[in-house]
């Protein structure tokens, strides 16, 4: 693939669009999370700012933008400021291979999933740096937990996606979407239900969302690795958390729910609907379950999800060998 000028301009345009998408998604997600949390707890959620509180999230981000960058005293300067930046930028790359439409892909390469999984692990480095640099015992504990958790939950995620790659025979996201039909019963979720379940659990673990939000467990570690960040640093961490959520939901939509193919008219809107459905599920879980303990979290991963993932791979291979 020669990196000619056209491709280069296309990627730059795509990156700008993706940044806009991430910021927009953060605003929408903050609003959705607070409204859903509100209604689950039988209270209205944001109400005052704008009609039904719609521009509350925007005003919050304005506030975070304008807030003073308070930095505790003996903090490790370079790493302290590098961490939020490092949390935000790798996620940009992850959106490139996602097929928004039949021809609407930022960077069409035929190993899309390898790029995504490679850079997904980079996010945890920023958690570690943030925890270590802010010279606060609570954040140190949070950072140590974040590393162990993300490393642990990468593997079942890969195994689940691998099962689908086995099925569709290619790692190119566009090909995988094409193979799935328009109607729900033609999607991979019916062919690989166990893989979808494993993927769902590991995506909640990957993005540090409740009930696996050990790194920033409020009741134990006050706020985990981003305790000492305020203003834009805190906003960047939240932006990257929601971007990670959006990304893993996109991957879930592409792999299991038929990507941009939908019953009436294909198009990127189907991808967004499915992604936001997955994210609604993650928000719903967050406000229902208590938090697991750290050793239970790892036990669940290494002793249950990993064997199940391997079993699922093995079964898929056997079935494909016999029937296809």
């Amino acid at each position: 693939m020669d990196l000619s000028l056209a491709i280069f301009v296309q990627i730059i345009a795509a990156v700008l669009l993706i940044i806009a998408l991430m910021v927009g998604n953060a605003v929408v997600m903050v609003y959705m999370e607070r409204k859903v949390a509100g209604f689950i707890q039988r209270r209205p959620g944001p109400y005052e700012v704008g009609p039904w509180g719609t521009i509350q999230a925007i005003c919050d981000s304005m506030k975070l933008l304008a807030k003073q960058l308070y930095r505790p005293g003996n903090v490790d300067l370079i790493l302290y400021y590098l961490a939020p930046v490092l949390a935000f930028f790798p996620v940009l790359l992850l959106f490139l291979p996602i097929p928004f439409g039949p021809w609407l892909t930022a960077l069409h390469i035929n190993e899309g999933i390898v790029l995504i999984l490679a850079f997904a692990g980079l996010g945890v480095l920023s958690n570690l740096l943030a925890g270590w640099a802010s010279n606060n015992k609570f954040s140190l504990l949070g950072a140590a937990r974040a590393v162990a958790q993300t490393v642990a939950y990468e593997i079942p995620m890969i195994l689940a996606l691998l099962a689908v790659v086995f099925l569709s025979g290619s790692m190119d996201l566009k090909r995988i979407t094409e193979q799935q039909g328009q109607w729900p019963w033609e999607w991979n979720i019916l062919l690989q239900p166990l893989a979808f379940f494993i993927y769902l659990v590991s995506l909640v673990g990957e993005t540090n969302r409740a009930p696996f939000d050990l790194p920033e467990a409020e009741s134990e570690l006050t706020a985990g690795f981003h305790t000492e960040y305020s203003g834009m640093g805190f906003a960047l961490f939240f932006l990257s958390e929601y971007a990670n959520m959006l990304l893993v939901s996109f991957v879930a939509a592409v792999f299991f729910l038929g990507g941009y193919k939908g019953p009436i008219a294909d198009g990127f809107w189907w991808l967004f609907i499915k992604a936001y459905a997955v994210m609604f599920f993650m928000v719903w879980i967050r406000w229902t379950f208590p938090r697991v303990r750290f050793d239970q979290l790892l036990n669940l991963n290494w002793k249950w999800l990993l064997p199940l993932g391997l079993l699922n791979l093995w079964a898929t291979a056997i079935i494909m060998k016999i029937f296809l």
Partner: protein
Amino acid sequence: MLKAIWDNIKGLYSLLVGMSITGRYLLSPVETIHFPRQVVDDEIMASFRGPIQLTLGKKDPTQTRCISCQMCAKACPGHCLTVTKGDAKAPIQWLYDFSYCCLCGACVETCPTGALEFSHKVYLVTVSRQELILDLLSDLKTRGTQLGNQIVPPVPPAAKEASPSVAPASPSAPATLAAPTSAPPAPETKTDPPKAAEIKPDAAKPAQTKEPAPASGSTDPVAASPAVNSATNNPATNNPATNIANDVKTGAPAQSEPKAQTVAPQELAPATKPETKANPVANKKIHDHSSRPAKKRGHK
């Protein structure tokens, strides 16, 4: 091993049950009351023990029953009350420092003439401690004149405790010293005669929805104007629906959760200056708490 698998499956089922419950609540109506637009039902607030106030006189509602015998001032654990006796029996100044009051009711229960009672003011908020020193005499006058134009049926000897829940909002006394009055003080508030009827919960008469706050501009929630001649802007402007003359309801519908009556979303009344009348004794040294003389503590 099989048992472990079965445990996890049962666990998974319990997770789904939990989600179904929160899902059901996700779709059910909101339980909370949205404060500025809705107010907690008055029937609930009728038994609330707010800051104390002087009860209305039997014959003339603006006259207090207090004979300034200082029994309440002695009984108060927080030294909140200062009653200065005029030449006649009635006091000429009645100061009540709400910032030291713990609402224990010692004064209400020891007053020989029943001159004190609990108000049901929930929304009493001020900017400084100085403004919490309330002048109950002027508050009584405003409430008395409030009822002046309605003939007060003799208060039936209902239990002293269930005093008529009348806390009409009325701007402070008319004459102003210097502060420009932004709103005409003479309110034409439409208040129903405060029939001290016993609250009959089971009468199925539909509750009148509270008509919007009186048309007059100032709905100054702090009924008692701060005694001190500070022309500070009266802060509590963001809760208009508070001390609207709440008529005594005859029968709130009998469901249990607090019925919130929605107040018509009238525009939030502009903040009005508290026109404190040139109080002759204003600059007299009021009960100064800053010194808190130690000997007073001993109670010997």
